[in-house]
């Protein structure tokens, strides 16, 4: 029988027709329809092919718990694995079924069904083992092509945002209970957020006619009035289309809002909002989910959950089948029965597993009165048909089976409180023998459950329950007279699986529809020794699908408990993990993608660099010029060689603003500095500078920098660009937690000064022209001293130091004068061919002088002694951080890796950074024993000033190897590069240029 229209429906706008395509064919629905309701309206039954066996599947439910009707939306994002039962249609929407080839109707994958004995539980642990080579060449490519559900988008273009909330109370679910709670909190002192996953409020009130009237009003009127009152309230906000997917500690919830429910995506706007909510109290009113029953071929298109069938009637006005068979083990299906009869239809059969007493006189009378064939103490043996339900076998009593014909079978195995969120919040659940399900028991956080999620199925008692549980909030009193259409006495008979006759290989009784797990698989797994529920889940993949087994996982516990002969509470449940429903990466990322992925930091003269063709590199969050292109076709190698050569010939200048600067001041500043760094600062003269090292307590170098001493109570220290935040943090840590008795304050002043590093033989000339009032002569401005002076009303500082080994200066100026000064320096420097250089040249020049770079020569395992920095250690100092560790047996070893220089014997060869130092010219072939590793190359460059490759390396016992010939392992071929171990200072070892 084809689907009929129910004139009354609450979700549909009858006057708005919407067209969409499914697998290329055009269909019509109404605005408000989901893909599923629209397809049912058009009598489409075959929606998908199952995961493993490619069995034909239809629409099983009417909500997010759907295990079968999972489709692909073809739009900009090619959204895979969308639930057809949740996704609303919009004009022009293109929908495709998944997991089938070449078509839904004729799917080659269904051959898996014939091979199904091979695909039993855990088959992937037992198959595809050999022969050798088959995995890479045959099995893997085939599996990759056939596995998985849906196709991913070609490009990531989806835009989503994050929205933070801070409230006092969150109510999850705007059904009957949630709306009552919200209404009671209107205009109280609490900030309340009410979250509803649907486009409409009402929940169960809209799913059926279980509640007939509220306060003598029609239910819809009450909902509308409640929504109006909430909207004009001062303290409650409603978020619709917002599904709560995670409930974390401490009372932090994540909800996903679909901003384009029922609309085509506008790519200029954000399509998803991830709500991150911090609250003091959480009220869970998120309802219940119906569960199914396992029987032979319980997966055929046409089998649907009973309350879902009811939802289609009341929400969408679709009667998928006017004469279905109803199979139940509990009292909730009465209203479905009544809804059908009230519309003038009747089921072909009403099959109840309970006995006469449980069913009750009222229902029996009703069934008789309306001439509905019914069977009690009965069950469904199975169903048959070609890609859809055609014949249904009813087991009347022990062995008598009768067959009826219908295209749909409505199944209800009971209802479960939706405890996902409650257990995510670390609450504990308890088995209820009367309801035959798990109920929330001990909350871990400020969590309250109300309504069916707390196990209260009697709507007449809901208001009392809420009054009780929310009394501590002192909410308002409201009138709530609820008239129900239902029995207020829920009863259920335990039934997980029916007894079936084995018909063929094709006959299967499923326990997990999404992942194609049969009840036989469960039994087999237990036989193989997987008797713990967590192991069982992973071995069989039961409830591991995108639906998380919402309609079936409790059933599997029931079946397993019977096999193990244990109580269900002993068997336990697996841990429910967030998210509650599939969550797109776009929502998780929010706007923190592409250029926004990480904050970018720029120096005050960044634009000048751009205008002068700088190519940038990332140093932490900073954008630093890597090199400057003199003309568009200049390569990086050419640029760096040019910059390096020019700097040593005349002068070069680098933007060093990114380096950290810390101001240290106080009565005990000197003692503090002596403790933090290896160097002795006591005898250091005021207005001088010193290259300083900071170690960890393990003796390893953590950072370096230059310390400028104003006086014993006032210092400024520089740090590496990347290390600045950590150095400041470490200083504060020691001052606050270890040495609070020291009177010292530290402030970061990294951003308060722009820094320029100018070096080269002509740098003095240029500086003298720029700062005419300063005497730059060697006598008056010696190496490693600094001066403070007035520059255009600001306080500027110049330090004579350099990282290049040339005569050089560091200039510190407030950022508002940065660009103007930089330009002025070039104005005077152009006549000397002053060249701007970037970080690559900086690295090259310092390497020519054997200067180390933290993070290049050091890696957290290098001590100052390894770098021949003994001269930087204050031997007379009683204590400093790392001092004791320098004499540990490990740090005092003679064969530690030590810093040396290496040059290739053949000057035309080039050494790569990171390569290994070995003793052998050629590696044996085949390599039977490990080749001894003597060290590694930490830095390597082609020196334009020496015209060959120079490199620095850390080699075991390197200090004793001067002049020795060793080899560098090569990436290409097997012949290693012959090198000689030399001093790492390649240029001007007497430092004549530096101190001129």
């Amino acid at each position: 029988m084809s689907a009929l229209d129910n004139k009354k429906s609450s979700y549909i706008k009858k006057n708005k027709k919407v067209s969409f395509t499914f697998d290329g064919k055009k269909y019509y629905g109404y605005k408000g329809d989901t893909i599923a309701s629209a397809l049912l309206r058009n009598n489409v039954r075959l929606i998908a092919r199952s995961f493993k066996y490619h069995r034909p599947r239809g629409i099983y439910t009417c909500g997010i718990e759907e295990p079968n009707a999972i489709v692909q939306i073809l739009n900009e994002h090619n959204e895979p694995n969308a639930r057809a039962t949740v996704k609303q249609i919009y004009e022009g929407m293109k929908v495709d079924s998944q997991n089938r080839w070449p078509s839904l109707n004729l799917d080659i994958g269904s051959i898996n069904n014939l091979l199904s004995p091979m695909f039993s539980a855990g088959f992937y642990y037992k198959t595809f083992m050999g022969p050798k080579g088959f995995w890479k060449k045959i099995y893997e490519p085939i599996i990759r092509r056939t596995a998985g559900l849906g196709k991913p988008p070609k490009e990531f273009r989806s835009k989503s945002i994050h929205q933070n909330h801070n409230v006092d109370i969150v109510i999850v679910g705007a059904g009957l209970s949630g709306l009552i709670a919200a209404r009671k909190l209107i205009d109280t002192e609490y900030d309340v957020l009410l979250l509803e996953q649907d486009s409409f409020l009402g929940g169960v009130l809209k799913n059926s006619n279980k509640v007939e009237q509220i306060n003598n009003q029609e239910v819809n009127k009450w909902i509308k009035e409640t929504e109006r009152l909430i909207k004009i309230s001062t303290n409650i906000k409603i978020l619709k289309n917002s599904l709560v997917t995670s409930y974390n500690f401490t009372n932090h919830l994540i909800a996903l809002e679909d901003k384009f429910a029922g609309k085509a995506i506008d790519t200029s706007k954000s399509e998803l909002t991830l709500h991150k909510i911090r609250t003091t109290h959480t009220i869970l009113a998120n309802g219940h989910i119906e569960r199914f029953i396992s029987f032979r071929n319980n997966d055929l298109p046409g089998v649907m959950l009973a309350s879902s069938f009811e939802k289609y009637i009341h929400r969408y006005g679709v009667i998928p089948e006017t004469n279905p068979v109803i199979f139940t083990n509990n009292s909730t299906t009465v209203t479905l029965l009544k809804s059908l009869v009230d519309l003038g239809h009747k089921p072909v059969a009403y099959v109840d597993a309970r006995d006469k007493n449980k069913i009750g006189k009222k229902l029996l009378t009703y069934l008789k009165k309306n001439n509905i064939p019914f069977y009690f103490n009965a069950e469904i043996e199975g169903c048959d048909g070609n890609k859809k339900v055609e014949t249904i076998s009813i087991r009347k009593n022990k062995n008598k089976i009768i067959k009826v014909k219908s295209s749909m079978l409505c199944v209800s195995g009971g209802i479960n409180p939706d405890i996902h969120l409650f257990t995510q919040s670390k609450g504990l659940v308890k088995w209820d023998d009367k309801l035959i399900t798990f109920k929330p028991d001990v909350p871990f956080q400020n969590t309250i459950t109300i309504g069916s999620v707390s196990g209260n199925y009697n709507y007449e008692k809901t208001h009392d329950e809420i009054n009780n549980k929310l009394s501590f909030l002192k909410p308002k009193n409201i009138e709530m007279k609820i008239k129900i259409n239902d029995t207020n006495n829920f009863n259920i008979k335990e039934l997980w699986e029916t007894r079936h006759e084995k018909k063929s290989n094709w006959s299967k009784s499923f326990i997990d529809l999404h992942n194609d797990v049969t009840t036989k698989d469960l039994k087999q797994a237990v036989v193989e020794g997987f008797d713990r529920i967590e192991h069982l889940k992973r071995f069989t993949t039961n409830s591991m699908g995108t639906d998380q087994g919402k309609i079936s996982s409790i059933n599997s516990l029931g079946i397993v408990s019977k096999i193990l002969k244990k109580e269900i509470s002993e068997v336990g449940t697996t841990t429910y993990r967030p998210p509650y429903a599939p969550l797109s990466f776009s929502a998780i990322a929010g706007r923190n993608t592409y250029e926004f992925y990480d904050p970018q930091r720029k120096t005050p003269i960044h634009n000048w660099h751009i205008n002068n063709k700088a190519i940038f590199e990332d140093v932490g969050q900073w954008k630093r010029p890597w090199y400057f292109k003199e003309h568009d076709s200049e390569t990086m190698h050419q640029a760096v060689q040019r910059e390096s050569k020019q700097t040593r010939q005349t002068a070069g200048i680098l933007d060093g603003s990114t380096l950290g600067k810390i101001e240290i001041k106080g009565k005990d500043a000197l003692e503090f500095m002596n403790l933090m760094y290896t160097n002795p600062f006591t005898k250091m003269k005021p207005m001088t500078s010193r290259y300083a090292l900071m170690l960890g307590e393990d003796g390893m170098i953590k950072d370096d920098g230059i310390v400028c001493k104003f006086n014993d109570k006032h210092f400024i220290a520089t740090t590496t660009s990347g290390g600045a935040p950590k150095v400041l943090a470490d200083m504060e840590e020691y001052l606050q937690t270890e040495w609070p008795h020291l009177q010292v304050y530290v402030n970061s002043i990294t951003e308060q000064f722009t820094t320029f590093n100018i070096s080269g033989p002509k740098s003095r000339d240029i500086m003298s022209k720029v700062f005419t009032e300063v005497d730059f002569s060697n006598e008056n401005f010696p190496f490693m001293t600094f001066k403070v002076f007035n520059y255009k009303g600001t306080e500027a500082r110049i330090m004579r130091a350099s990282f290049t080994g040339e005569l050089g200066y560091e200039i510190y100026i407030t950022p508002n004068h940065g660009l103007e000064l930089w330009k002025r320096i070039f104005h005077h420097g152009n006549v000397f061919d002053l060249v701007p250089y970037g970080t690559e040249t900086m690295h090259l020049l310092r390497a020519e002088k054997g200067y180390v770079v933290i993070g290049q020569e050091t890696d957290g395992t290098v001590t100052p002694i390894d770098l021949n920095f003994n001269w930087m250690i204050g031997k007379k100092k009683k204590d400093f951080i790392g001092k004791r560790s320098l004499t540990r047996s490990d740090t005092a070893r003679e064969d530690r890796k030590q810093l040396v220089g290496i040059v290739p014997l053949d000057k035309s060869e080039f050494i790569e950074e990171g390569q290994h130092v070995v003793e052998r010219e050629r590696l044996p072939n085949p390599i039977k024993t490990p080749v001894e590793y003597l060290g590694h190359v930490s830095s390597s460059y082609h020196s334009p000033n020496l015209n060959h490759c120079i490199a620095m390396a850390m080699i075991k016992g390197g200090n004793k190897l001067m002049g020795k010939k060793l080899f560098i392992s090569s990436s290409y071929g097997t012949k290693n590069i012959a090198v000689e171990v030399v001093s790492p200072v390649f240029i001007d070892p007497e430092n004549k240029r530096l101190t001129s």
Partner: protein
Amino acid sequence: MILINCPYCGERDQSEFSNGGEAHVARPENSDSLNDKDWGQYVFYRDNPKGIFYERWVHSHGCRKWFNAVRNTATDEILKIYKVDEKTPKIDSFTNTLKTPSGEPKVGSGNFTVKK
């Protein structure tokens, strides 16, 4: 993300803080007289219990001040926060202490969901 009550700034999201490891590990003043083993104990070893733990936090993206906390590492509950110069709270003042034979806390460790 858990909520941490900075003693200076009030309740803030965990993302503003950095964990500072075990608390009350004093830097030895007489390190010269310690042998490698004892010095190594200070440098490299820290406790890592399941259950009540005394640790440090720093409000890195806020006031940048350090403070101490007593946290149940199995449930992530912060039981007490106290400033660097305040008295250390005693372990038996906390009710949620280890009770089971293996030392595991009974409730909410995330490894089981059903009330026993």
